[in-house]
């Protein structure tokens, strides 16, 4: 981290508008990428992004480790996006023990296939992600892309870990099918 970046962060803490603009310019594309992974609609993702940066400027005073600012903003973005999706009326996480889950897909025998999206174009992966139902998209993003732990995911979404595992395997399966269609 260069001294200039440190200076910018310090100035942001003093509510300096120019420094805030520089910080935004530097990290907005990255944060927007995170938002778009969760919320595929461009407009809605921009709403989330706005919320993210309000939170960033609010919480900047509590940031100890300047080196971690990128990861910190990423985390804020993913959390804001998840909260946005959870607030939608039609997004509902169902626990695996519920009778709704007793369809053919609920078998836990699906092996955890190593599934790497790097062989595909980012845009096509994003497009496929956008086609997934919200809950699968959220679980896939949190576990596979943002490397969160199962317990964190379970806590955030209010489900238990085995349910999260099941959601992930379904999400992967659906994503693979979508991507193979595009190939």
């Amino acid at each position: 981290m260069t001294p200039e970046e440190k200076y910018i962060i310090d100035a942001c803490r003093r509510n300096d508008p120019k420094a805030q603009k520089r910080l935004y310019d530097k990290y907005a594309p990255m944060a927007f990428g995170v938002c778009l992974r969760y919320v595929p609609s461009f407009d809605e993702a921009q709403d989330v992004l706005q919320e993210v940066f309000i939170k960033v400027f609010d919480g900047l005073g509590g940031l100890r480790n300047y080196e971690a600012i990128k990861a910190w903003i990423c985390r804020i973005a993913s959390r804001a996006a998840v909260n946005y999706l959870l607030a939608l009326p039609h997004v509902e996480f169902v626990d695996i023990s519920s009778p709704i889950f007793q369809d053919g897909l609920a078998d836990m025998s699906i092996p955890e296939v190593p599934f790497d999206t790097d062989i595909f174009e980012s845009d096509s992966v994003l497009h496929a992600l956008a086609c997934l139902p919200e809950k699968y998209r959220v679980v896939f993003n949190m576990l596979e892309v943002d490397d969160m732990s199962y317990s964190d995911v379970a806590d955030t979404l209010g489900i238990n870990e085995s349910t999260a595992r099941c959601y992930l395997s379904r999400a992967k399966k659906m994503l693979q099918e979508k991507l193979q269609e595009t190939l």
Partner: protein
Amino acid sequence: MNNNLKNYTQQPSPEVWNKIQHTLRRRTLRRQICTAAIGFTLVAAAVAGVMLWPKAEQQPVQLTAKQSTMPKAVVVPEIAEIPALPTETPMRKNVDSQSETVPVALHAESSPVTAVAPTLEKIAQPEPIAVVAQATQPVAVPAALPPVASTMITASLAEVADNAPATPSKPAPAKATSSNVSEDTILWIPNIFMPASDDADLVVFRPRLNKKDETVSKYKMTIFNRSGQMVFVSNDISYGWDGTYRGVEQPQAAYVYVINYMDAKGLRHQRKGTVTLVR
């Protein structure tokens, strides 16, 4: 693994920064106003405290004197009126007919008296004068009357207290008939439309009349987008929105519509809701 996705970046539109800047600026302004207001009140309180300090010792005496007189001032005229209004049992009608001319606060006090009047008359038949006389001192009333009567009086007095502040806030009943939204079946409003569709019914967004012979007048439909900007307005029910604003196709999203119209009976209606534009 998944590194492409992890490092995926996308440039947001410049409007987002404007919004953020706007919010930040407003927030700092609000904070400044808050601190200024708090400082001002503190200073004012301090000044007032210093100014009123010598008088503060005399203040409580005056206050208790006022408190003891306050209930008298409210109760006395009402109960004293009771003999004057004995036969007017349908007082409510009178109250309603007068309500256009006389201030509301008066009726708030006088209308519960109807409830008091019969009970008081029944109870106080042996010694009506004594009750009225004693009623001027609210503390003495329960002692002079049997226990049931005293509770009834206190209950009706409590009604007075309850009704008095509530009545002025009620709106005038004359307007209540002009808007009736619940039983509205004249218009059917779709919740989705698709400008690119082959189906002619889906191409534009407009409400449909449920029956052919229905008519609406003073029709006005306004449509807003997610940021509250008005994107469409129409005064003709057959002219609907095709999903464009100033020639630009609007993005797929939910839009808010507000439809005002008047039906054949002359009742005004308003319908609000969201419609989803599908590309």
